[in-house]
Structures are given as C-alpha cells and as structure tokens.
C-alpha cells in the first residue's frame, strides 16, 4: 500500500526524504536520508527567520551526538 512521504532538496542539490522530526532543547531536529542512497543520512535543525523556514547544519560534533541519541531513543522501539 502506498504511503506519502516528504522530500526536500538540501544545500548539496540532492533530494532527501524526511524520516523524522524531534523537538529538543528549543530546537527541531530533522532527520533525512538521501533518496538515491539510504546510506547517506544527515541531520538538520529547522529554524524560522525573516527569510522563511530554513534547514541548517548542526553546531558541532556534540550536538550531532545528542541528535543521534534522540533519534535512536525514539526509533529503537
């Protein structure tokens, strides 16, 4: 049975499917997988500014580790 999914084009020009969104520490983390290669996975933060809604990279490795922990905790069940 077909289901709907959302796809967005990131700064590298590639399409990514949105796997999940998790709110934590005043941020919304968006988890994405490249539509051409499921091994190509990444995380962005969703922010709102005067330009509109943006997906931006994480601050540092520590935030990446934290974001991955959030994803793992939510999706391990």
């Amino acid at each position, binding site marked *: 049975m077909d*289901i709907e999914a959302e796809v967005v084009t990131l700064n590298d020009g590639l399409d990514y499917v949105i796997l999940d969104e998790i709110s934590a520490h005043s941020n919304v983390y968006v988890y994405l997988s490249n539509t051409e290669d499921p091994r190509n996975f990444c995380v962005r933060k969703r922010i709102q500014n005067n330009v509109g809604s943006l997906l931006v990279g994480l601050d540092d490795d520590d935030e990446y580790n934290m974001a991955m922990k959030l994803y793992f905790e939510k999706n391990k069940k």
Partner: protein
Amino acid sequence: MADKTWDSINRAVVNGGPLNETSNYKRMAGMSTKELLDEALDPRVQDLRSGKQFEDIKKIIDPRDYFLSYVGIDDSKRQVAVAYNENARNNSVGSNKVSADVRRKVKTDAKTKNIVKATAAFIAGVAVVGGLAYSVSKIEDANLVKETVGYQSVVENTHRTEDNKGYWYDTTAIASDLASSSNYDDDVYGAYYKVNADGYNVLGTMDDIIAQSSDYPDFTNYLKEHGLVKADGSIDVDKYMAQASMDLKNHLENNTGERTR
C-alpha cells in the same frame, strides 16, 4: 504508481541496501533496532548504557566494536559502518549547510520507508554506542556551555546574505550581552565555543567581542592574562577550552561565577 524519486530508493535497497548481501542487513531490516541492540549488548554493556561502571567497562570492551561484530559485521565491514556514521556526521555539522525548507510530497510503500528508517536507526545506533564510550563528558560539556549567555548570544542566523549562504555576527550585540554578564569568563567561553564550532574567523571575531566588552585589547591578551600561553609564546587554546569548561561546570554546580575583565 511510485514516484520516480522513490523508484530510485527501491533500486538502491534492492541493490544491496546499506550493506552488501553477505551482511546481516536483511535480518536487521526485519527486526526493530531495540531488539537488535538488546540482543547485541551483554549485561556489561547494558550497564554502560545506563552509565554504571563506566570506567571499568571502558577498559574491558569497545562497545562500538562489540555492537558491530554482534550484528554480523566483520572487521572489513566494521570500518564501512563506522564510515557511514562519520559520513553522516560530516553531512550534518556546519553552519554553511543551509537550505530552504521547501517540502514536496511523494508516494512510496511502507516497506521501503521502513528499510530506509532502519538504515538510519542503525547509523544512529553506531553513533550512540560509540558516542557513549567516547563522548559522554563532551555531550555534558556541550549541554552546559549552551546554557551560557555567551553561547546563546552568538547567532549566525541574525544577519544572512540574500542567498542565505553567508552570514555575519553582530559582535557589538554579543559584546553588550557579555559586558552586562555577571559570569564574564563563562560567557566568553560560551561565545568562543559557539564561534569556534562555526569555524568562521574565530580569533578575529573574538578579538572584536573582547575589545568591546572588556579592558583587554583583544582575545589573545585576555588569554595571556589568564596564563594560557605556551612556551613558544603562542596562546594555548586547548588548555583554555579544558580550563574554561572545568570552571563553568564548577560555577554552575556551586552557583558562583567570576568576573575578571
């Protein structure tokens, strides 16, 4: 009929998924990640996950290797799996990674999406298990530093170029926040931590902030005043990070702060 985009996902999965046919990927795709991890981790590593006996376990086992070997990834594949995680890390970190959040709806089937999600959960599992062994204290430090006014005052999205690819800091506003801070040193550290993570003109930016918020002419003199100078006369940034992190933790635990400007 499936969207063309999703046809490509199907092809990628059919052609081997995240690991090749000799791996345990197909078995993984049929199990929840929790089942997989619970099966993979013995009681010693379960303790590690809950933070117990951390130091002892760290000496005994590398949980990342254990996790990967248990799910059927041998030495050669292990490097590949860790590489997936490093690839994900590189693709995720960096303030230069900016794009408009414009979404399109596509159709797929639940099985395909579950396989893609399982791949992501596996990468996250590698990151978490490895991260627990190597980064617990770093994560704690990061969470602490993000509470500082200095960290929160450095915002790369306040001023962006029209194409959204570039940005500049409002060092005057940051300096103003620091100047009114009762924990100046902690907030300087917070600001440095954030600017350094962004990686854009770190010393120049910090020079501007320090000059506008203190009696020091620049960041280098601020560090020299705190004894953070190497034998060759250059500033010791690694020592500064370690010392400032420790001071911040102590100040937050004891509800104290210092003002040395």
